[in-house]
Structure formats: C-alpha cells, structure tokens
C-alpha cells in the first residue's frame, strides 16, 4: 500500500516537472501564421514621399517625443532602435500580493513587476522601384523585471525577467498619428 503511494507521488512529481518545460518547436517559429498578416497591417503604414531621410529622421523625432532614446540607427537600410525604461508597478499586483500573503497565512509572497524596458524597432523602406512610396513598420516590445518574493521558506530572488511583444493597436495608431503630423503626410494602411 505504501509503495503504491510512493509510486503515485513519483508519477505526480514527474508530471509536474514535465509541465514546467513548455514544448516550443523552434521549427514552427520560422513559419508565417494567420496572425502574421494582422500584425503586419497593424504595424505598417505607407507614405507617399521620395524623401527617405526626412521620413526616418521624423520617425526618430516622434520616438524622442514619446520619451524613447535612440540606441541604434542605420540609414542605408532605414533602421532605428529606441528604448525607454519605466517603472512597472501596478496597484492591482500589489493588492493581489497582499491578499495571497494573507490567504496563505504569510507563507507565500508573490513577486510583483518592478521595472520595465520598452523598446521600439522601426524599419523604413521603399516599396516601389521609383521609391516614391515608403513603408514604415514599427514593433514595440517590453522586458519586465520582477521583484523579490517568497514561497514558504524558499526565498525568490529579484530580477526574474519576462519579455513580451506589445500588440495593443492603440499604441501603434498613436505613433502613426504623430508621425503623419510630423511629416505632413496622410498615411495609407496596407
């Protein structure tokens, strides 16, 4: 009877372990998905202009207005990368942390998001051979660092990272609204 209990525990534990390793097939990551086109449409606008440099420097200016620091730029391929760091504290998470702390009788303190780095990658390129129409594509993502926590007697050190793509359409609409104002051009969607 006791042995069966042991076997059951072992099986349970091993199944828990298997749950930890989420299977990601790297092969699938290089395939276009139905969402790819949706994301592309959201992240891209077309501008009727021949001045590539002006469009790129206006994009950099808009990113600066939004509080980003330009980290890398390559004019020949129309590439900009900019980042900004902000606090990631949310009241909701602190309330949740407190509730769990009380409900677990002080055994569990879940880590909350402390700090985040928001980054933008912008690519600008001509879409026709005469280069009279340019495409601007921007992608936002963020990295979040968590604070310290505790699970029973196990101390959870701070600094755990979480990364995510930002896919809120409003963010992209705001950026392109500012950019079109800056270059005095009406953007086209795909």
């Amino acid at each position, binding site marked *: 009877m006791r042995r069966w209990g042991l076997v059951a525990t072992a099986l349970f534990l091993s199944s828990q372990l298997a749950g930890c390793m989420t299977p990601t097939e*790297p*092969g699938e990551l290089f395939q276009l998905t139905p969402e790819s086109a949706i994301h*592309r449409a959201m992240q891209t606008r077309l501008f009727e202009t021949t001045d590539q440099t002006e469009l790129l420097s206006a994009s950099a200016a808009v990113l600066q207005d939004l509080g980003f620091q330009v980290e890398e730029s*390559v004019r020949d*391929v129309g590439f900009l990368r900019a980042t900004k760091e902000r606090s990631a504290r949310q009241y909701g998470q602190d309330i949740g942390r407190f509730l769990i702390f009380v409900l677990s009788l002080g055994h569990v303190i879940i880590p909350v998001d402390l700090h985040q780095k928001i980054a933008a990658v912008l690519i600008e390129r001509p879409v026709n051979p005469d280069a009279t129409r340019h495409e601007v594509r921007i992608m936002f993502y963020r990295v979040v660092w968590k604070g310290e926590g505790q699970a029973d007697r196990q101390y959870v050190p701070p600094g755990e990272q979480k990364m995510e793509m930002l896919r809120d359409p409003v963010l992209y609409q705001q950026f392109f609204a500012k950019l079109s104002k800056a270059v005095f051009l009406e953007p086209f969607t795909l």
Partner: protein
Amino acid sequence: MRRAWRATLAIAGLLSVQGCTAPQPTQDLLAPTEAQMKMRSFQTRTFDVKDRQLAMRGVIAALQDLGFIIERANESLGLVTAARFAEPNYYDVVGITVTVRQETEARMMIRANAIHNNKPIEDPKVYQNFFATLERSLFVTRE
C-alpha cells in the same frame, strides 16, 4: 610472488608509457567536418537579386513578418541580427544572424544561422521555412 611483482611492474610501465604519448593534434583538427559542410549547405541559398541593399531590405522584411525584433543591421557588411521570444512562452529566445553576400554580378548568397536559447538549430526544415518566407518577401519587394 615474483611473478606478481613482474606483472605489477609491467602494468606500471604500460601506464607510464601511455601517459607519455599525449594525443597529437592531427592535421585536420580545424578542417571542416562533413556535418559542418552539411549544415552550411542548408543554411545557405542563392537568389537572383542584383542589388545587395534590396536583398538586405528583403531579409529584414521577412524577419519582421516572422515577428523578429531586428537588433543590429550593418549595411556595408550585409549583416542582420534579429531575435524573438519563442511565443507563447516568454522565457525562450530564438536568435538569427543573416549575412548577405554578392556571389556573382546577378546573384546574391544569403546565409542564416539560427539559435534557440544559445543552442544552434540544426533542423534543415527550420531553414527551409525561413528561406520560403524570404523568397516571398524578396519577390514582393521586387514588384
């Protein structure tokens, strides 16, 4: 007793001799192995593109379509480095480096190296998928 001694001596002698012969570096230590050649062949593909900048822009567009974040681009070297999170989980990272080189006047050689959490991806299918997307992107760009 004597025999045992002799045997011990012989074994000790053998051991010491073995210690002396250090493995000599062979001539082909840095020569490409068959596996490396194979890897290179499916990581490389040539395209009928004349303009290198056009090819680079095609590579960048293809990577963006695949959801990659462009980290670095060097026009003069034809180098693009990009990465993405292995969604849906946000802890694994897939990285890729693509180099674009002029092979002949009218042909461009494009090589891609992909890694998954710092481990090289050796599955040919991954690269096939990538080049399929790239082909589409280059074709659209050329229109």
